[in-house]
């Protein structure tokens, strides 16, 4: 007898539908899975067999063939277990399988028949809606995430024994409740950053315009502290963005669903593939995990050159395309880059009498740093140890009030560039439409002439100046805004 169920397999950050056909025939007892399964899928045979027997179903001692269509798509992971088991039960006429038509299933089976969570539940629920399913049946733990998907019913089951309920005509499981998406107030607050007015200003500008920021300073000067508090001044995610972030987090299994902006801080030994995504089939990397959030690279100079080179394209386009022999996939990667570096290899800085670095190694370090920066970073801010007065002084301004100004500035940007877009991604034509005061233009020409500015960094300075003006709620970029931007930008030769 033949039965058919629907499930999903993950590719990149989206789920592709898979038809699971199970056929039971007379013949020597065997269980074959065909249709480009990977090892995890092939091993499903053993899990399905044990799970069915241990929940009291009968495992047919006949020739069983399962086909996963489309046959040219590689099926990965254990998420197909539940669909295989259900198809087998339906083909063996142990449950009325036709009642499940229009429903998709995904879940990993344990040997005792319980259903374990899978990665990418939200992506699967969305895919279920797209391919016209009425609903999807998922493991209990995936319910809150998957139920965020609009326009599709999500039911969750704890064990495959619940499939017996089909005999009485009920779709098994309980209706899932969407995750509660209040922003937690446990986010580290910027008021912990005492003193450092210049760093605070840089963070505000970077957060408002989405500009990449590099902090240079000795260890212990508060670079990491500031970076970890960066997300707290970014505007809250809109519902669309929350879905994007939750989809990625679900596919990568990188944590529970929240309304917070992601903050990723990969170690400097990360490979290029680990940073931007890679492998075959392509898997998302750190930059995709930090989509709509912050990617923090501490010790920027220690990152490998290929890894930093790979950041170039995503920083420009907000997405990354990974091409491999077996195909290509485009993953979202609109993140704000925040980086930190020591001023010299020993970390003290050349001006410090305790610095023991020979000039050659400092020069080499600088060369690495400037190589790492070229074309990637708009703003550089020097961070120094706050003085004892600042440390003993009062707390800094809270994130909440900084965030209000950032939101205000972003609203102005959205009016000009379109919803959700920030100055950092403004293209040439949009920059050409910025209103710029004559005096500001003059200053820009002077800066270009005094070789402080290469032609290439021209656009960057204008984007930055636009953000400074937006924070000032000025429709026109005035001379003081441009000068302020010039002070924040990265310098040639550094």
């Amino acid at each position, binding site marked *: 007898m033949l039965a058919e169920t629907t499930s999903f397999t993950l590719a990149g950050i989206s789920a592709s539908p898979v038809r699971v056909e199970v056929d039971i025939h007379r013949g020597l007892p065997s269980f074959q899975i065909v249709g480009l399964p990977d090892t995890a899928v092939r091993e499903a045979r053993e899990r399905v067999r044990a799970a069915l027997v241990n929940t009291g179903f009968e495992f047919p001692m006949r020739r069983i063939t399962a086909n996963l269509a489309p046959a040219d798509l590689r099926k990965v992971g254990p998420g197909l277990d539940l669909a295989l088991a259900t198809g087998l039960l339906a083909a063996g006429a142990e449950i009325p399988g036709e009642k499940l038509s229009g429903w998709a299933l995904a879940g990993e089976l344990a040997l005792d028949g319980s259903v374990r969570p899978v990665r990418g539940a939200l992506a699967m629920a969305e895919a279920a809606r797209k391919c016209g399913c009425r609903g999807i049946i998922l493991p209990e733990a995936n319910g809150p995430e998957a139920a965020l998907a609009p326009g599709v019913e999500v039911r969750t089951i704890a064990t495959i024994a619940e499939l017996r309920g089909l005999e009485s005509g009920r779709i098994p499981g309980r209706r899932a409740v969407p995750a509660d998406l209040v922003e937690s107030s446990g986010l580290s607050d910027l008021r912990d950053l005492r003193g450092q007015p*210049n760093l605070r*200003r840089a963070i505000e500008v970077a957060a408002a315009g989405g500009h990449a920021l590099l902090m240079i300073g000795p260890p212990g000067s508060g670079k990491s502290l500031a970076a970890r508090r960066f997300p707290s001044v970014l505007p809250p995610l809109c519902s669309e963005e929350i879905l994007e972030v939750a989809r990625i987090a679900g596919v990568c299994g990188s944590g529970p669903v929240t309304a917070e902006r992601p903050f990723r801080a990969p170690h400097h030994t990360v490979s290029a593939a680990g940073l931007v995504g890679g492998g075959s089939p392509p898997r998302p990397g750190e930059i995709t995990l930090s989509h709509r959030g912050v990617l923090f690279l501490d010790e920027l100079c220690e990152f490998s050159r290929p890894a930093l080179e790979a950041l170039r394209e995503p920083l420009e386009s907000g997405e990354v395309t990974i091409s491999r022999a077996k195909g290509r996939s485009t993953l979202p990667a609109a993140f704000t880059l925040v980086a930190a570096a020591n*001023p010299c290899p020993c970390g003290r800085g*050349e*001006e410090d009498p305790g610095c023991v670095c020979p000039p050659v190694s400092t020069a080499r370090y600088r060369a690495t*740093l400037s190589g790492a920066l070229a074309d990637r970073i708009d703003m550089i801010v020097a961070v120094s140890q706050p003085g004892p007065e600042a440390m003993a002084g009062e707390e800094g301004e809270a994130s909440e009030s900084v965030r209000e100004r950032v939101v205000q500035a972003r609203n102005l940007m959205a009016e000009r560039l379109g919803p959700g877009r920030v100055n950092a991604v403004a293209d040439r034509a949009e920059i050409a439409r910025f209103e710029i005061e004559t005096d500001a233009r003059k*200053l820009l020409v002077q800066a270009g002439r005094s070789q402080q500015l290469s032609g290439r960094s021209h656009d960057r300075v204008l984007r930055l100046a636009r953000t400074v003006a937006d924070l000032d709620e000025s429709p026109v970029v005035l001379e003081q805004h441009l000068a302020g931007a*010039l002070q924040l930008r990265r310098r040639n030769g*550094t």
Partner: protein
Amino acid sequence: MSMVATGAEGACAECLRRSWLISRLGPFIQVACDDRAGRRTPELLRLEDHELVSAVAPRKVDALLSENSALDEGQLRQTLEQAGCWALCRHDDGFPEGLDDGADAPVCIIGCGDGFHLEQVTMGGSVTVVGARRATGYGLEVARMLGAELAGAGLTVISGLALGIDGAVHRGAVERGRTVAVLAGGPDRPYPATHARLYRRVRESGLVISELPPGTRPWRWGFPARNRIMAALSRMTVVVEAARRSGSLITAEMAADAGREVGAVPGPVTAGPSAGTNELIAGGAALVRDGADVFDRLAGVGFSFPQKLFGPEICDSDIPVLEAVEGGLSLIDSISPAAGRSLAETAASLARLEIAGYVTCSMTGEYGRTGLASAATYDPPGD
């Protein structure tokens, strides 16, 4: 000024052979002068051929000497020509006067570069500016400014192309006037390698000289030997920044021994990188704050040094910020309250001042004053 380099005709065969002999003895001298400072090198190089070889390679005296005397003059001249070098020995009228009077002066100078002729480098018309390789932003800025001011005033600026201060001196001088780099190895070998681009610029518009033939690698003993040439060439040697045991102090010592003027740029008394220069001043060296101080020493007080360089006009709101930087504040977080302006205003002022050339900003965000004078804050020396 003729742009044609002097050929190898400026040196006699004997002096050329002497050059090649020292080059050949490189590894032997390295062993003989194994003290780190290499102060003995100049004394060694004072010896005649035979004594020199017996001192450093007593077991190979005959072999080395006969090998040296067998060198074919035509061959040597061809080697020079192929490397684009010229040579000048003490028997030539054009040999620099500064190198003529010392007992330990080199007999032959080999050089390259198209800027001008070595004959044009007079002792009174040149000044040597040196300093440590490990330099602070302050030292580099003063070095660059001195190089630019002195070269701009028509003096020949001599330095050693080393990392740190020396490089900054050449950078300042190379665009404004004449500069001479004295190398520890052959003049055709850029050393240090990181200054290869600067080497090319100096070679194009100035001179690169050495007492060693082309192709000679820089031995450790070559540096004190090179220092004695730098000290001897000019009437005054200025040390910009040197810690207590810096090699630049040896250059100053050599200059003093050769009867030349010594000057030093002062630094904070608490600063290690300026300890050596402060000590020089305490010991009687001329205090050098700018090009005018050097000129006063060379030509007598009151000699009209070309006017100070004034930058463009600045707006009133930038003045307190410039004054704060002149006052020694380097971080924007401390400049802003001292100038009594908001952080955003201070940032804008700093950007304007940097574009106008009054301040520089290091990669680590420290602002410093440049040598460019501003009409708004300039306080002429009272007299």
